[in-house]
């Protein structure tokens, strides 16, 4: 295990933490006060990630994916974000942790990769200088030369050709894929136990996307880190994730293993996400089925289930339960590890009889 500056009362506690999930988020709530009133971007969110495992967080823009991950990294401005709940990173509670202790964790025990590497790298500093800076800030005894050697080594590791020369390039001299590789190298330079990748492939073209995802998987195996991958692309989830967390309007609406989520989803929003994935093998006339409507306003969220204004299945629920009462996050029919937030009495039946025939009739045959 990577050494993490953790203050713990006893060795036993440390041992217990080492066995448990590296990251444990419990009842996280993030609120931003605005002129129009408080905006609750994330609430009631709980999840955990073990070392060596990958959690995929899926959802539309504004569903709270990035906001919750930035809370883990402590990247929200304390003046503009109110965070409550619990986030334990390697046993350290980071909610309410002092800025200086937080700084020791950021980029060291946990690192984050951002989606647009061109914007996320500083345009005026050389790639090498930016990597060295990330190394030196957590290795105060290392020399500039050590840092440079480490930077070249990391660039080599992420597959940058001629790393000893490219280390002196500026970000704009790199291609899009190479910039994202450099970003990954910077994230992993201090051997973090938790890596959060926020839409790492969104700004890249498809062939490069696949390379970057492969690279992330290789590195995860090598470094045995816990990985959170934030995306709206279910293809990325299918390739990368062990577990999937589906977010809608700041809440977890469904959680399960990747297989459970992709084959037996039990929440209409997840069905909608699956329906809107294009299928390269289908005929060119095939239409994508979009989710009707728009994401709800977080300032004035709808009462009851926040998805109900866009949900076509509300008629199957007795009375006006959907629009008055927020469904609990309860175990689904496939097992206790699979959680869903929906009032539907028989979601599996609805999925098989109504949703699956529309999106993938051939799958229906297989499951029977």
């Amino acid at each position, binding site marked *: 295990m990577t050494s993490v500056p953790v203050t713990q009362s006893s060795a036993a506690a440390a041992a217990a933490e080492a066995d448990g999930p590296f990251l444990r988020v419990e009842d996280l709530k993030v609120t931003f006060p605005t002129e129009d009133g408080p905006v609750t971007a994330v609430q009631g969110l709980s999840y955990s990630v073990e070392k060596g495992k990958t959690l995929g967080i899926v959802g539309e823009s504004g569903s709270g994916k990035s906001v919750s991950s930035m809370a883990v990294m402590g990247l929200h401005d304390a003046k503009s974000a109110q965070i409550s709940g619990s986030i334990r990173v390697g046993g350290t509670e980071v909610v309410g942790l002092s800025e200086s202790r937080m700084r020791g964790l950021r980029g060291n025990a946990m690192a984050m990769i951002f989606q647009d590497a061109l914007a996320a*790298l500083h345009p005026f500093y050389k790639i090498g200088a930016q990597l060295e800076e990330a190394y030196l800030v957590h290795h105060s005894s290392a020399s500039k030369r050590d840092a440079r050697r480490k930077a070249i080594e990391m660039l080599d590791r992420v597959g940058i050709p001629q790393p000893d020369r490219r280390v002196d390039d500026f970000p704009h001299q790199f291609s899009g894929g190479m910039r994202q590789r450099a970003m990954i190298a910077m994230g992993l330079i201090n051997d973090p136990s938790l890596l959060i990748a926020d839409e790492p492939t969104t700004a890249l073209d498809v062939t490069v996307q696949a390379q970057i995802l492969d690279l992330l998987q290789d590195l995860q195996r090598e470094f045995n880190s816990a990985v959170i991958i934030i995306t709206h692309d279910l293809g990325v989830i299918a390739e990368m994730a062990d577990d999937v967390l589906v977010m809608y309007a700041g809440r977890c609406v469904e959680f399960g293993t990747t297989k459970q989520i992709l084959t037996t989803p039990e929440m209409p929003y997840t069905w909608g996400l699956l329906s809107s994935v294009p299928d390269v093998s289908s005929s060119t006339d095939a239409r994508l089925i979009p989710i009707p409507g728009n994401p709800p306003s977080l300032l004035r969220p709808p009462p009851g289930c926040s998805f109900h204004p866009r949900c076509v299945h509300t008629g199957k629920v007795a009375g006006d339960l959907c629009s008055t009462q927020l469904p609990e996050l309860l175990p689904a029919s496939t097992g206790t590890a699979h959680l869903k937030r929906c009032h539907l009495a028989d979601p599996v039946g609805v999925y098989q009889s109504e949703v699956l025939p529309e999106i993938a009739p051939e799958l229906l045959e297989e499951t029977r």
Partner: protein
Amino acid sequence: MFAYVVKRLISGVLVVALVSMAIFLLFWYGPSSPAQPICDRETSNRCTPARLEVYERTLGYDNPVYVEYGKFVSGVFGGRTITIASSEYECAAPCLGVSYRTKQPVKEELVSRMPATFSVAVGGAFLYLLFGVPIGVAAARRRGTVTDKALVSSFLFISSIPYYLFALLTWLYLTITFEVPLFSDTGYFPIADNGPFKWFSGLFLAWVALGIFGCTQYTRFTRGAMVEALSEDYIRTAKAKGLPTRTIVYKHGLRAALVPVVTIFGIDFGTLLAGTIFTERIFEIQGIGWWALEAVQGRDLPVVQATALFSAVVLIISNLLVDVVYSVLDPRVRLS
């Protein structure tokens, strides 16, 4: 980059040539004869048409304009002898003419006035940056707070006062009303003749007026650029690396915010070097700006031409320097 600089210098020379032609033409085709003011002055306002004709002939105003412009250009490169009425004046190369009022070669007077203008410009610009940039950074970091709003609105108030009024009030209050002894005698006193203290106290008020007025603008520029820089993705990256706040704000934020500030500063400093008419006039500093003002009032063509050419040259050079510095500051900019 060398080729770029050479190309820019060549185009700069062309611009200077065009400026000199434009000024020449403006005077030549102006509403009254350029010889009229000299004639008036030298005959104590009894300039008869016959006298005027003598001045016009000796100054060459009866020749076609291109002949006289040719003489001016050859004077710049080879020197010439200038005749005004019955007197002859030697003017060595680079000859910019002889002042119609003082009969002194213009170039020598221009050179002798440079130190005063440079002193004003360097001191004023130093104060611009010394106060403007740090206050701008502080305001940007406290964006939206009472401190930020108080700074922005009070600076907006200062910069909405016309500069000449601001400078005049500064001078009136500090020298006349309150008679602050340090400031009472404003003007340019060369260090060599009077020592550094006299030089400093003579220019101090001018610097303060320029500095306070200019720093309000630099605070606004810096604040704006800094607010933009601090909201960039790379600032979030810097924070995610675990860097201390000071490094994030200065090494990552200010480094990016300085680029637009330096660009504006280069142009402003060029303008200051070309002569600050209000500052020099109000604080009685015998610099290029005041000289230009007097020349326009006395319709002293050679002096007006020389000061206009000088400001064109200074602005062209400062623009070129800004572009070169820009390419050094921002590695994405390539000069070609």
